[in-house]
């Protein structure tokens, strides 16, 4: 039996007819074509599918699309405003907080949620707050730095092979 659901996705009202077993992540990716939300595991470990549901970070592979009926969903595609990437998105690039980019959308969404709950987290709080998101490329070092940079707090950088910071691409 099909269900009609109404979901606000990235500020736009959507009305869709879906199968009851359709996962939210596949609704976003396949039905709406929002392919920025990724799937990285079968068991809700990796967090690549993280989106905001009414402002709260959730793994969209563990929800059915019908559970989002009447709710507000924000995906990675919804974080930029008026063509400007968010402070967190810019910080991930400036601090080299991504390599292959596959975990990045979920990681950025989780980090955004973390700062919405705790605007000035310690390193330990950042690491704890991102435990639900696996990154296999960065060793998390530059992800932690990116979140610190996005807080606007002064970051004490550990020793590094270069004294010069990243040069922005104009």
């Amino acid at each position, binding site marked *: 039996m099909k269900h009609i659901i109404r979901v606000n996705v990235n500020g736009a009202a959507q009305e869709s007819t879906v199968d009851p077993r359709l996962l939210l992540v596949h609704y976003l990716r396949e039905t709406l074509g929002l392919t920025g939300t990724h799937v990285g595991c079968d068991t809700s470990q990796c967090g690549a599918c993280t989106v905001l549901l009414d402002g709260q970070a959730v793994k969209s592979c563990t929800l059915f699309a019908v559970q989002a009926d009447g709710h507000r969903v924000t995906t990675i595609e919804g974080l930029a405003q008026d063509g400007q990437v968010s402070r967190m998105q810019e910080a991930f690039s400036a601090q080299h907080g991504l390599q292959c980019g*596959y975990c990045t959308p979920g990681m950025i969404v989780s980090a955004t949620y973390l700062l919405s709950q705790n605007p000035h987290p310690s390193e330990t709080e950042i690491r704890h707050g991102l435990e639900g998101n696996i990154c296999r490329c960065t060793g998390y070092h530059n992800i932690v730095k990116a979140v610190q940079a996005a807080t606007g707090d002064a970051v004490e950088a550990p020793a590094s092979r270069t004294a010069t910071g990243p040069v922005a691409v104009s």
Partner: protein
Amino acid sequence: MASANVGASVQRHEDPKLITGAGTYVDDIKLPGMLYVGIVRSPHAHARITRIDVEAARRHPRAKAVITGQEVRARQKAPLPISWRIPPDIQTPDHWAMATEKVHYVGEPVAAVLVDDRYAIEDVMDLVEVDYEPLPAVTGPEQALAAGAPLIHEELGTNKAYTFSAANGDTDAAFSTAPVVVKQRLINQRLAPVSLETRGIVAQYNYPMSELTMWSSTQTPHITRTHVAEMLGLPENKVRVIAPDVGGGFGSKLNILPEDFIVPLLAVIGGHPVKWIEGRSENLMNTVHGRDMVDAVEIAADQDGTIRGVRATIYADLGAYCRFFAAGLPVLAGLMLPGNYKIPAFKVDIHVAYTNKLFVDAYRGAGRPEATYAIERIMDLLADELKMDPAELRRKNFVQAADWPYTSPTGLAYDSGNYGPLLDKMLTMTGYADLRRQYDAHNAPNPAVRKGIGLAAYVEIAGWGPGQATKGFGVANQLFGSATVRVNRSGTVEVLSGASGHGQGHATSWAQIAADQLGISHTQVSVIEGDTAMIQTGTGTFASRSVSVDGAGVHIAAKRIHDKMLQIAAHQLEAAAEDLEIVDGQITVKGVPGRAVSFQQVAYSANVAHDLPPGLEPGLEETAFFDPANFTYPFGVHLATVDVDTETGETRITRYLAVDDCGNVINPMIVDGQVHGGVAQGVAQALWEEVVYDEHGQLISGTLMDYGVPLSSDLPMIETGSTVTPSPVNPLGVKGVGEAGTIAATPVIVNAVMDALSGLGVRHIDMPLRPEKVWRAIRDQSGPTAQGGTP
């Protein structure tokens, strides 16, 4: 070397799409009429297939096709390729994409379904009925080589793949006369690469044109094209392979695996575009594993720590088949075992076997982590035996700068190196001497939480590679670099590269390299990789090869463009080309600022054939194929400090320092990032990760709930430092850095934990050093009473 381009931490060009969700990975590709592939796999490690019935599956309303092993085998023109055949007498079974009569590991494909609804894949697969007659399984190399072991491939008459030995000097004499001999058996456990994006393939076949297009999450699109064409019996120029954005690889995506035949075959016979996306459990079960070697190592030394000799016996488990580069990995583990040290007598014997487990192949480091782990663990055990500081023992035995040109005991000519000063830098960064004193004082009263310091030196073999040398090694595929640089009419630049990045930042580093030669900004350069229709040939990205081989190609091609543009400008300025230079997009007569023509103007002239010197071809496009004269040998020292809780067995890394010498550096930010990620994977092997099979060959670690990849809360910040010893074998002086961290980190962590436990009688614990294992080792030494009884 440092300019606005090369040597600067330029923010990555590829990031804007990846931070906004606008990247295109394979699963993001949707074609009209696309069907979905599911692969039915063996639940047994070793069994005869007695019956397959697919009729019920074919009747499912969503099923479009169901094929079995026999049908697939009938269409496969060549078995899955093996590139590296070493030694020449290696015995290899033919590896077909699907099992027909017998299955050899859990997960081996036996049938495939094609459906028109992704959610119906499992429904249809469930209807495929396969009957098996289970056979006894072989799960370890020593067991596989024992007399009377069940045969995995009857046609070979043995489970042995090969034996290989290398020797230099008189090890028997060294070991019989040396005052100190230390031995240890070391297990390098099986690992899963776990790129966050699993593998996936979209394939489309154009019937009237007999053309196949395949989008694949691969590190090696050109190699894939060659072999997919061969297996399907299509001309190579009718197959196009595209690697879109690729979500990590770590070696697991350089291979040609069963799905690389099954999925395009279904596009050919199904008449529709098809998509196969690997599930995570499929990935852990069916995409190559890495490591799985056991080393028995012994070292002979004088009382002052001077090494007299090293002997090792390696048992390696290839799994059920010999994959693309897999045969070479135990050999590399043996040839690189002497590491950074002068070893007058060296011998290694290698025994390689097939078992009823998934095939192994290259995983980040691929043979070098095993070598480094063996030598760096035995060095620490020797230091412990001699009561010598492990840093001093290493320094005493290092190959010295004055020893170059240096050839290792196994005949490898290291390109360049300077190990002592790098160790000094590490010890200074650490505050080593003070820290040793503090830790000794801390541990003296036998506290519950003990502190340890571990370090390891490494030298690896990277930059794969020189054609003639790799032919000598028995590698069949190309390893040289390729790059095309072209300048458009508007003055923008495109670099096409035969590497195939998947997170390494080539779009940025290649732009920096080209811009550096062309006297323009890297922002004017875009980089294209991963499409066999656009790039004539390529090797792909693996084995820390891209920058020193393909990056060098970019440099050479850009230099040729530079020279041609100067020729054109010389004609237009009525000057000699050797008097000209390109600075900030202007081609000027050196020392005469007013006499100039813009880069863009010369680009226009070349592309419309106006005002060219007589006889000069129009256009601005140059291709370079770079075949390096030798491998590169990056090196470094890593160090970690740990807290080990003796009551829980838990290890906490309190500091991790990496000093690496990868020659000249194009983008320090990217190099640091490669080190961070490599270290995380090496630390993970030391502490958490392990692919586990039971005695029946059943995979126990089949999900990310069971296979412990590190989380953000498991790891510390990583302090990085460097020395710079340029490589003489490529024009950039670079060595490569992708695998360094993974190679160094495992012995560093194990050495640190053993250092923390020194004095408790625990000499060695095999990886991963999970709390339960560490706790047991302490308890077994201390006796149950001392640790408060058995649980």
